[in-house]
């Protein structure tokens, strides 16, 4: 078995209540790779991300981060792993009662014993990385959507994590801001050798930054492959996603009737 993967998911099955969300997910991500997880709404891509982050307990299967199975590790080991993970949430999720600078210093303050001025310098350095130099004293509510996402990214990388996760990085951003964020993701991988997982349904940005793409649909992986493999895939559902076509699922008359009458 190859243990060199940064992230390895095996036979992951998850439920939300009685509903099965993810079904037999197998995924392996190499160190320093940018993996895009793509899929339509309700495909389970966000759920997969939340499981990678250890926010939910799966029904079965294993999730290995840096070789450690997070479904089995002790709280202390999970704690250590978390200092090696950076996450940029869809809405940024900056703590709204703290300034931008305090937000970015938060992981340092909680996990290190650095003195105040060092933490200040490190926070300002990361703000420079995301082109937000001089914004540390503003409150998150005073920033625009794109700035919040970049500030959240600065917080995610302040501990120099080995793994970086993005949830819909370009959602709600104008094309220029989205493209800048893509460049930033590439720059981070090149300069800091991070393993990066991005969940998105934005095709353009996916093709721009991806090393490999995993396409999810209805909780199952349709395919995992390079950009050209995905583009040239013969799977109908993948082509639907790529060409923005409406899905052409056949309607089952009996099931449709049951749904309407509420008998299922």
């Amino acid at each position, binding site marked *: 078995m190859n243990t060199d993967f940064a992230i390895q998911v095996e036979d992951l099955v998850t439920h939300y209540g009685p509903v099965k969300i993810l079904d037999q997910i197998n995924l392996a991500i190499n160190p320093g790779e940018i993996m895009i997880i793509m899929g339509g709404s309700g495909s389970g891509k966000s759920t997969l991300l*939340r499981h990678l*982050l*250890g*926010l939910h307990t799966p029904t079965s299967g294993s999730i290995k981060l840096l070789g450690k199975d997070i479904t089995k590790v002790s*709280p*202390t080991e999970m*704690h250590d792993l*978390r*200092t090696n*993970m950076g*996450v940029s*949430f*869809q*809405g940024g*999720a*900056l*703590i*709204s*009662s703290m300034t931008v600078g305090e937000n970015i210093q*938060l*992981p340092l303050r*909680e*996990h290190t014993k650095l003195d105040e001025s060092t933490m200040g310098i490190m926070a300002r350095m990361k703000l420079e990385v995301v082109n937000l130099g001089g914004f540390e004293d503003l409150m998150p509510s005073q920033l625009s959507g794109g700035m919040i996402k970049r500030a*959240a990214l600065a*917080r995610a990388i302040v501990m120099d994590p080995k793994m970086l996760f993005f949830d819909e990085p370009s959602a709600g951003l104008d094309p220029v801001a989205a493209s800048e964020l893509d460049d930033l993701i590439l720059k981070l991988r090149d300069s800091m050798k991070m393993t990066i997982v991005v969940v998105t349904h934005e095709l353009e940005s996916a093709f721009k930054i991806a090393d490999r793409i995993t396409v999810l649909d209805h909780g199952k992986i349709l395919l995992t492959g390079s950009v050209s493999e995905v583009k040239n895939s013969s799977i109908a559902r993948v082509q639907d996603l790529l060409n923005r076509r409406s899905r052409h699922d056949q309607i089952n008359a009996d099931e449709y009737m049951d749904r309407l009458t509420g008998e299922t």
Partner: protein
Amino acid sequence: MADVDDERIRNSVENLGRVVVAFVSEFGYYLALVYESFYWVVAGPFKRQPVRFAAAVSQMVEVGIAALPIVFVLSFAIGVMLAIQGVHTLKQFGAETQVVLGIALSVTREFGPLITGILVAGRTGSALAARVGTMQVNQEIDALRVMGINPVRYLVSPVLLAMLVMMPAITLFSDLAAMLGGAVYCNAGLGLGYVAYWDQGTAFITANDVMQGLLKSMVFAVIITLIGVSNGFSVSGGAEGVGRATTRAVVLAISYIVLADMTFTYFLNR
């Protein structure tokens, strides 16, 4: 006909079962939350996740110091009311001067902690539910967890500590303010001097009476914190959800405070 009756009975039994299960699971959740909050206070430093003293102090200011003006006003008014009612009642027995005993006992044992509890439930309980609920909606709680910051340790433990210190302190303050309210009325209405009032009052009440009130206030502190925080954590459904959780937190906290107060009074006075 019998079938319809059967079904109705089955439905009501099923509903009763659901309510009981929901109640037991919520109560269990409260207990787990209390346990976890204290766990982090004690074990946090050994797990490299200490509860921040500074956070607890800033909460103390927020919960306690900031509440003092309104506590004073309400407690003072309660003291005046007690004096008016006491004098009115005792006049029928020609025992107006005994009013000080009535005020001192009811304030320290009952009204001080109760008025403080209701007020803090309205101020801090709602604020907690709204704050934690908004953080939940904005994924800030998730962000804390993925940063390796336990939300209970970071958000709940400091508040619980602050509440346990400040509730008795504000209650004591409330006792004094209510006694002062009574004194002002007695001075104006009965011509009772302040020194005489104070001497009479302190002669009657024992340390036990005051302690009873303070003990109650600590129970209220736990109730307010838990209900506020747990309603915040369970928010789903955006801004409307936050509003619902806030309302629920205040109503539940006040209800539990009154019920706990009654239970306490019953057992402590047997």
